[in-house]
């Protein structure tokens, strides 16, 4: 057994161990923190699968942004755990559930072991048509060209989620602001951090979105980094979130999918059809759409994390 194999097994054990710990953790808050660690370990597994774009997305969105969301929720739900005695399951039921789950995992594991190697693949098709997009990163080409419809609808799903979250606002809070209030006096390390980091983070985010055309990275990862910068300044209470009825905010929210749809429609006139790009200018068009997508993602993710507007308008300021 080589060193790499031992490390792989160690990583798998660690991932499963942390996952089991998040289930078993006594405190809700600890479980949420465990989930963040789990996500970071999982992105290492993705690196081992040679899926660097997925690893970046998992680290940024699966672990980072989801982590902030879950930790904030765990803080606000403190004291609601443990549940009432009537909700505790009898040992027999637990054993039955465990048996069922072991069976599910066993069937899936058998499927994994019996999987054909090399398996069915679309990689040769992607390789054949990659040149037409002008991109060097095949994953970006799939996201933005070959399966562009999926990606566009996924942006719409993000906006639907924002609408869903906003619709949970109380009547008197509608039109107000979500998230914590800004502090009158800025001080302390968190404020310093929130003022120092965003310029660096914005440069890194733009870099990651830009190199995504040819190397691992792209609109999702860059957008998630921008969103992280927005969340840091919100959490440090340096600025407050915009009110939900601001027109510019709504324009930014729909900018990504709207531009996607618009250029997709133009495809009817100047190319083969919906979401088809004209020969030769596919790459600039894709990067143009991605720029708007980065903006939309950077706006959507923090809005989903801070939740619905929650300040009654009639109350004191």
């Amino acid at each position, binding site marked *: 057994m080589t060193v790499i194999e031992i490390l792989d097994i160690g990583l798998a054990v660690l991932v499963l161990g942390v996952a089991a710990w998040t289930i078993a953790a006594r405190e809700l808050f600890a479980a949420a923190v465990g989930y963040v660690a789990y996500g970071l370990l999982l992105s290492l597994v993705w690196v081992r699968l040679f899926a660097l774009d997925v690893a970046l997305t998992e680290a940024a969105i699966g672990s980072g942004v989801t982590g902030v969301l879950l930790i904030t929720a765990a803080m606000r739900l403190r004291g609601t755990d443990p549940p009432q005695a009537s909700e505790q399951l009898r040992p027999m039921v637990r054993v039955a559930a465990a048996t069922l789950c072991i069976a599910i995992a066993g069937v899936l594991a058998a499927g994994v072991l019996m999987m054909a190697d090399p398996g069915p693949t679309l990689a040769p098709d992607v390789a054949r048509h990659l040149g037409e997009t002008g991109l060097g990163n095949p994953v970006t080409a799939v996201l933005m060209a070959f399966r562009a419809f999926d990606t566009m609808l996924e942006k719409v799903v993000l906006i639907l989620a924002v609408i869903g979250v906003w619709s949970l606002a109380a009547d008197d809070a509608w039109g107000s602001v979500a998230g914590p209030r800004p502090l009158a006096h800025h001080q*302390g390390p968190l404020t310093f951090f929130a003022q120092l*980091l965003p310029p660096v983070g914005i440069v890194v985010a733009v870099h990651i979105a830009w190199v995504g055309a040819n190397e691992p990275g792209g609109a999702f990862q860059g957008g998630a980094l921008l969103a992280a910068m927005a969340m840091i300044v919100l959490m440090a209470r340096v600025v407050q979130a915009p009110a939900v009825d601001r027109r510019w905010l709504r324009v930014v929210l729909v900018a990504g999918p709207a531009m996607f749809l618009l250029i997709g429609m133009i495809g009817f006139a100047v190319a083969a059809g919906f979401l088809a790009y004209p020969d030769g200018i596919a790459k600039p068009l894709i990067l143009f759409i991605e720029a708007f997508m980065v903006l939309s993602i950077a706006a959507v993710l923090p809005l989903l994390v801070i939740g619905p507007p929650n300040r009654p308008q009639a109350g004191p300021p």
Partner: protein
Amino acid sequence: MSAADVFTVVAVSAGAFFFLAGSVGLLRFPDSLTRLHALTKADNLGLGLVVLGLLPQASGLLGGLKLLGVWVLVQLSSATAAQVIAQALGRRRPPP
């Protein structure tokens, strides 16, 4: 194995040792402040040594600068996180 590779192995191993020491401290120390101390002290040294060891392996100047950038950003965020956690601890129960 070239001299640069030997340097990498030695420095990264030393870094891993400090991570291990920090993790042992995190598990064994009695209260939150000492655990925080173990984490920040040992991990900063550990990460510094790992980055230092990887520098000779970097692909060109840009790769090396990216590694240093990672190091600076992690230093900044871990120092901030340590301060924020310590402040939260101070708020929860005043020092004896």
